[in-house]
Every structure is written in C-alpha cells, then in structure tokens.
C-alpha cells in the first residue's frame, strides 16, 4: 500500500511523531469536533446570543433593581441576592446553550453527517466524548467570561443604591464561576439528549421539559411532597451554584451542582450505551 505510506510521510509534524502517523486517536477526534463546531453558523449565533443575553439581561435587571430599590418591601430587601440579580440572564441563556448542545448531535442525524462520522470513527464512543468535551470546554470559557462581565457590570448598577457585593464576600466567587459551570453542564445535558433521542425536536422538548416544565408541574403537588422533591429537580439542583443566598430547604451550592452533574452524566452514559448498540 504505497499510497498510505505517502500520507504517513506527509503527516510529519512534530506531534505526529509521538502519535501514530495516520489513525484515529481521541485527541484527533476532538480536533475534528472542534472544526465541526466552529465551522457552523448556528454555533456562532447561539453562543453569541447566549453571551449577549447574560451580559445584557444582567445589566438591565440590575439597573431595574437599583432604580426600584426604594419601592421594595423589607422582606424582599432581606432576601435580595445581588450576585444572582446580575447573573439572571443565565435563565434565558441556558436555552441557547442547551439547544446548541442538542443540535451538535441531532444536526448530524438530520443531515446524515453521522454516517460519515461513524465511518471515520467506527468505534463511535470517541465521537461522543469528543463532542462533549469540546463543547463543554468552549461553553465553560465563554460563559464564565460572560458571567464575570455580567457580574461586574451589574454590581456597578447596584452600587448606586449601595446594595452591590464584591467577589471577596463568601460564596460570591463560587456563584460567578458557577454561572459558567451551570451552563456548561446544561450544554452537556443537551449533547446527551441529542445523542439519546437523535432528533432535534425530541431533544429540545426533553431538555425544556426537564429544565422548565418539571419545576412548574411540581408546583401543583401537595406542599409536603413538594419540599422533598423540588430541590432535587435538575434545574433547582444545578442553579444552586450561582445563588449566594439559599433557601433553607434547598441544596447547598456544591451538593446541588454535583447532583446536576450526576443527571447529565447519567444521560451521557445512556447515550453511550445506545450509540454502541444502535445502527447508525
């Protein structure tokens, strides 16, 4: 096979010497997924939208809170969480990030790209790991930056009423980084659901069902049940990490976040099992 050796010789970059000259490795599949990610318009728009929403909405709501501060009653003042207020854009941005996570996988199924992908990486699992890792990394970097920007700008708005906070106060830094972490796991959950359901509509519906609809349904349960269930819902558990003030019944920041990661990993594990088992 002279032709193959020809390619071998071409691949003589310094790194290629430690790796097999031509062949599938986890790192290479990640590079492939990175190329796929940034070469689609939908990626750029969704991530840009998420950034704009986190920062824009954070500023808007912080400004609103400051300008209406004197109208608030003492109870609300007591439970005012300036960090959460400046990060409130996350509640909307999670939809953009989650949908993009679903699309990264379901878009391959709807276009047929998945067949080319699976033919190139017939063991399949490296693709799922690479998609998850690359998207998680990109989301974490961008969303954490957005989170810090939103926090800084929001606190500047709140400072006029002297109700702002700083990163040095207990739990605040965790919450601001937590904004990026929460969105990263939402994106991972999206990837897992996309791979489980192999359909854009199904993946998005399930994701919104878990994050948005489930908490509403639980509201209709008897109060005694609700307090046992509510805090364990994926959204409530995950969102604990970007709150500084926690309700007494809620999970703590890291416990809640760990549970949220658990849900996402369970979905990912299910996706991995099915990916190996199902025909492409």
């Amino acid at each position: 096979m002279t032709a193959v050796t020809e390619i071998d010789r071409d691949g003589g970059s310094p790194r290629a010497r430690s790796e097999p000259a031509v062949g599938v490795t986890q790192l290479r599949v990640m590079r492939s997924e990175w190329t796929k990610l940034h070469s689609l318009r939908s990626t750029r728009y969704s991530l840009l939208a998420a950034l704009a929403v986190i920062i824009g909405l954070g500023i808007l709501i912080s400004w609103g809170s400051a300008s209406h501060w004197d109208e608030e009653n003492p109870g609300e003042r007591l439970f005012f969480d300036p960090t959460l207020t400046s990060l409130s854009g996350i509640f909307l941005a999670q939809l953009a990030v989650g949908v993009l996570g679903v699309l990264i996988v379901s878009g391959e199924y709807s276009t047929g790209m998945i067949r080319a992908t699976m033919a190139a990486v017939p063991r399949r699992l490296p693709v799922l790991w690479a998609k998850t890792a690359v998207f998680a990394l990109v989301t974490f970097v961008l969303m954490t930056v957005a989170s810090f920007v939103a926090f800084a700008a929001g606190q500047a708005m709140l400072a006029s009423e002297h109700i702002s906070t700083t990163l040095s106060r207990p739990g605040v830094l965790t919450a601001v980084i937590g904004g990026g972490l929460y969105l990263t796991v939402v994106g991972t959950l999206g990837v897992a659901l996309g791979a489980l359901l192999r359909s854009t509509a199904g993946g998005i519906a399930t994701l919104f069902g878990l994050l948005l609809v489930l908490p509403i349904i639980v509201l209709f349960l008897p109060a005694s049940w609700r307090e046992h269930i509510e805090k364990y819902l994926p959204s409530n558990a995950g969102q604990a990490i970007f709150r500084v003030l926690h309700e007494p019944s809620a999970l703590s920041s890291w416990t809640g976040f760990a549970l949220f990661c658990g849900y996402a990993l369970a979905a990912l594990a299910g996706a991995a099992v099915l990916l190996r088992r199902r025909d492409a």
Partner: protein
Amino acid sequence: MIKVEGLTKRYGEKTAVDGLSFAVEPGVVTGFLGPNGSGKSTTMRMIIGLDEPTSGRVMVNGRCYRDFSAPLCEVGALLEARSVHTGRSATNHLLALAHTHGIPRRRVDEVIDLVGLREVARKRVGGFSLGMGQRLGIASALLGDPSIMILDEPVNGLDPEGIRWIRNLLKGLAAEGKTVFVSSHLMSEMALTAEHLIVIGRGRLIADTSVADFIHSASANTVKVRSPQAPQLRELLVSVDVTVTASAPDILEVTGLTSEQIGRTAAENDIVLYELTPQQASLEEAFMDLTRDSVEYHADTPTAKAATGASS
C-alpha cells in the same frame, strides 16, 4: 478485498439481507446488482460497520472494519443517502473528517482538486447540486487513499458527463489495483463499468460471475436473417435443436445455429442473403429474467407499470 460470509440482516420482521456470501477481489470493478429493495445498501452499510449484522460477518482486508486504527485508509465509502452537514463548506467537511485520522490539510486540497470542486470548496454544501454532492462524497471516500472503494448507486441522478466521469474514475482506481465495489439497479450501467458481477435479489445471492459470462449466458443466441428466399431457407434450417420464427415474409429469427452455420447452408443451396445478424438479448432483459422471481413488488397493472417506467 472484501469477504462477506453468511451475512444476514433483519429489521424487525423484514429480512433485508439473507445469508449472503461472496468475495470482492482487487484490481477489477465489481458490480453489485439487484432490483430496488434487494439489500444492496444494507449490505454496504454493514461492510463499514454502520449497521450491525443479525448474523454472519464481513471482513475487509482480512479484518473487521471496526478494528482498524485508520479505517478511512482501508475503505472509502460513498453511501446512497447523503452523509454531509448542509451548513458546512466542502473544505470544512473534508477537514473535519481528515482531522479524525491526522490526515494533513494538503490531502484535503488534493482530493478537492481531484473531484473538481475547487471553485465551490468554500461554499455551503446545502447549495450544491446532486452532481456536486456526489463529487464531494467521492472526495470524502478518497481522503484516506483507501485500498477499497465502496459506492452505492453513484450515478443515480447524474448527467451523462458526471456518469462518464465516475465510470472512468472507478476504472482508473481498479487499474491501480484497488478493490472497487459499486452497486446499481441498472444492468446497462454495470455492463459499461464492471468486469465482475454480484447479483442479488431479495437479499439472496443470485449470481457471482464475470460480466462477459453473464452476458453470454443471458444471450438467447438468435440470428436474424433477411432473404428473398426465406421460406426455402427455413425448410433447410429447421431441426430438433433449431427453432425458426418468421417475423416478416422475408425475415427469420433463428435460434440454435451460429451465423456461420446459417451462411454456409445458404451458400451451399444458392440462397441469396441480404442480412445475417447475430442478436444479443438486451442486458436489461437478461437481468430481469434472472431476477424475475426475486423482485419485491411486481408491476401488475398497466398503471403501476407506467409509474415504474417514469421513475426509473
């Protein structure tokens, strides 16, 4: 080299491929022929591990496709269904595939030039015509410079120019010593491209033969004779092994004799001949004869016939 052994695939109740065994050798174009729904695409998907066989197995170059560390360098596949994200450019699509193997960018540019997509390489694939899509598919298949090429109905929907391009490409690859396995539901296409044939119907093997033998065995060996003394010649030719039919007063269709034998008989008896033509059964007819019992849906009514005719 592709080796298929007792391959069976069931989708629920439906048996798409049924105990198929054959081998595809390097150096020649091997046609994979069968009516629609006979299991060609399913077999090809199983060769590259997209679908898992219900039983049996496929070996490519002596191994299971999944076990290769560089599968794109073993088998290049052009599937029937489009396998490319419409939102990406041709270059980025190929780059993404190349990156999985560490294939250098230079090779991506090379295959783009090879299939003649240079001008549109940076455009979104969604706007590509069918022919451009096929070319991109072939570029993806060639990316790893594989020793085996699998193409599922590659000429479907292409214009004559595109069809000729693919035909020549496949012959060229086979001449380089590669294994080329190409499916079609049209015998006429296979006759022009392939040297060897694997014919299936309803998922079962019907024939594994060279195209020349297939054509030979399929031909009815009739000879058309035109002569002003046709009735007289007819008397001389007819025997137990020879049938003669007259389609016009001066035309005979002779089965069972060669044109040489007929010509000699005519000369010996001073019979004038205007025409003496060996007839070859149409390939499409031969193929249909062979697969008659194994087509999925027969066109029973005139309307159904017209509809099939229009769509093919």
